[in-house]
């Protein structure tokens, strides 16, 4: 009753259907993006400021895109290991990365044989959030405001100890910038990470440091360290009592540890546009933006949220850090 033929026919049909299924979406592929989970490479360890920003933003973007964005932490060499891996991934929109001030700004100046070009090797998606830099000192530092701090550091810098989290870290580069503005030459003491550095600042073993606000808020609020200024055009809601560098008389000190999304070079424009829309939706969502600002995140730079704006930011940052880190402060 059941000859072989219909079975073969059915198989052929099945095979044809399978082929169609494979070939079918080829034409409307872009419209269908994303059709599987997207990997977001975060080039730092889980739990750090960039990781926290990435996870908060990725959570909302996953909802917009209808596909999970999976955070993959690839730490190492100041974030450049993860970014290099991202840059070498297929440019299909399924591997993107969270770059930041270090990997896409200071890295070319810090690592002479960097294997990627922050401008040429990426398709910018958009700026996520910055974390403002705050100048802090041990709680009994002999200066009551930023003016006195500046005067004291200028006069005594060779006697002072400045703590940082190692060459290439945010605290290292941003304080190198401060030192070069002040013409200061303190002893720069390296720690493995911000935590141990902060520990010695609270204990009074070192004199001052510069770091991202999210790491410092609880200590400043509790009065275990002293904050002199936040390097932003306007005050941060996370520490509303701390004046800006502009108010304090050091307006040239403007610096933010920004975090921004990039795709590998060659990713189709339709894909980066889709990702940019999802990013904007996340940043404009009241709940998500509140979570970010509660942590001290800075969402004020709206120009760099577009791919073109971000490209400009990267270009200016690379140029800036090349100058700052050549001027002095580099760990030579």
């Amino acid at each position, binding site marked *: 009753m059941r000859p072989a033929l219909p079975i073969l026919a059915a198989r052929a049909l099945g095979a044809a259907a399978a082929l169609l299924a494979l070939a079918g979406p080829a034409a409307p592929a872009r419209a269908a993006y994303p059709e599987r989970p997207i990997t977001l490479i975060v080039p730092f360890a*889980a*739990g750090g400021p960039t*990781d926290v920003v990435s996870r908060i933003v990725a959570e909302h973007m996953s909802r917009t895109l209808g596909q999970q964005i999976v955070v993959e932490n690839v730490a190492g060499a100041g974030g450049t290991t993860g970014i290099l891996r991202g840059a070498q991934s297929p440019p299909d929109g399924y591997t993107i990365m969270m770059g930041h001030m270090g990997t896409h700004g200071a890295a070319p100046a810090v690592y002479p044989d960097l294997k990627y070009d922050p401008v040429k090797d990426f398709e910018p998606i958009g700026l996520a959030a910055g974390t403002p830099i705050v100048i802090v000192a041990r709680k009994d530092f002999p200066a009551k405001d930023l003016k006195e701090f500046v005067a004291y550091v200028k006069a005594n810098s060779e006697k002072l100890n400045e703590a940082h989290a190692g060459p*290439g870290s945010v605290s290292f580069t941003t304080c190198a910038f401060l030192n070069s503005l002040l013409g200061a030459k303190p*002893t720069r003491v390296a720690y493995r990470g911000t935590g*141990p550095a902060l520990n*010695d600042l609270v204990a009074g073993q070192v004199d001052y440091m510069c770091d991202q606000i999210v790491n410092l808020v609880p200590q400043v609020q509790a009065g275990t360290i002293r904050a002199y200024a936040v390097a932003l055009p306007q005050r941060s809601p996370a520490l509303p009592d701390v004046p800006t560098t502009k108010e304090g008389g050091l307006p040239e000190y403007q610096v933010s540890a920004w975090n921004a999304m990039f795709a590998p070079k060659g990713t189709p424009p339709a894909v980066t546009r889709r990702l940019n829309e999802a990013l904007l939706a996340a940043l404009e969502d009241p709940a998500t933006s509140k979570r970010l600002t509660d942590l001290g995140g800075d969402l004020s730079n709206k120009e760099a949220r577009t791919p073109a704006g971000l490209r400009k930011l990267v270009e200016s940052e690379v140029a800036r850090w090349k100058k700052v880190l050549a001027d002095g402060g580099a760990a030579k």
Partner: protein
Amino acid sequence: MGLLLENLALGFSVAFSMQNLGLALVGCLVGTLVGVLPGVGPIATITMLLPITFGLEPTGAIIMLAGIYYGAQYGGSTTAILVNIPGEVTAVVTTLDGHQMARQGRAGVALGIAAIGSFAAGTFATLVVAALAVPLTRLALRFGAAEYFSLMVAGLAFAVVLARGSIVKAIAMILTGILLSTVGTDLETGVERMTLGFAPLSDGLDFAVLAMGLFGFAEVLRNLDASQHRDAVDRPIGRLLPSRADLARSAGPIARGTLVGAFLGILPGNGAVLGPFASYALEKRLARDPGRFGHGAIEGVAGPESANNAGAQTSFVPLLSLGIPPNAVMALMVGAMTIHGIVPGPLVMTRNAPLFWGVIASMWIGNLMLLVINLPLVGLWVRLLTVPYRLMFPAILLFSSIGIYSVNNSAADVLMAAGLGVAGWALAKLDFEPAPLLLGYVLGRLMEENLRRALALARGSLGTFVQRPISAGLILVAAIVLAAALLPGVRRRRDEVFTAD
């Protein structure tokens, strides 16, 4: 005292909610199961499982993550005993006598005493954290770079005592470990050292890679080596739980290990890694017949396992009272708390009292759950040893590779571990112990960094190490330990020369 009881009551009222009890249980269970995979330590486990806590309210999430942490830590000891693979630094010491016990058919007893010691230590450490968190933090803040360097010197003096056989070989391995710790980017100048231009080495060798290679892969090679006996179990399984005599023998080591571990755990900069080593060294010195150590002495499991757990708990002190994470696991906990909208800091204790005391109370509950989960599991784990080795070793290799890969998401790490495995096998053939090498590796990096930091802060004056009282005291301890260890050691080595085959 009344205030403490009041606070603990608040904590237990939070932790005893049905939901939080359930989360503590799930955390401990999942942590144990994942942590028991060779190579997957607490950091990898928490990173992998972090996203599943996103939907929870903060207190519950922290309780669950803390459970995962203890569970993973405990799981690491299980693999150390059963298959001679330490899940993380603090389990290295457990391989020395714990695995020897397993080879003698006493794996169940070793696992049992580890669970019981951990529970006793956890109970005590919970009380320490609850009662003394604030004053202890003040003490820990006095530990600067100079003190830290001196503590590491004392730690290296302990390391000599770890040696099972020749002291000269142990010293050689410690020095090799220190040398390996200098591979990678120099912290102060950013210059790469001894990386041979090989990019994956630019951040140095990862501890997991070194430990998996020298212990895990090398152990498999050694077991497949036809000229030697298969290691795991070639004797009957024996009793599953410690006898009364075992418990009596372990009581002292558990108490001492708890005190040593609890103290070192509070120190910033990962002082907890020294706990088990210090406890082992202490027990070996106190023992009437130190010769049993390294050949399955139960004291060598009970003491370090207690120290390990006490340290795991008290390392929450700087995090909860100061907001400053003392090690990588705690840094991850900070991130987890931040994602849940709580930024840990000096004010958490007053502003977020239910969370603070709830987490402390859940520490004890977590420890109780670990005991409840693990004692019945002992039988299961021990039965694993009866699986034929031809089935077991591919599984060990597979899971080890997954574990190493998961640390940095790096395939190069897996290949390096394989290479180190061959090196570890060769070293074992020549009777060199890998444990002192790992200790040298861990302490070497801390030692170098703190030495340079202390000298930078003192503007190059070596006097800083003896002028600061805590530092001077530690140097003195190191000198005494070393003298005491070396003198009989020289004698013992002479004996061995004559008994060697």
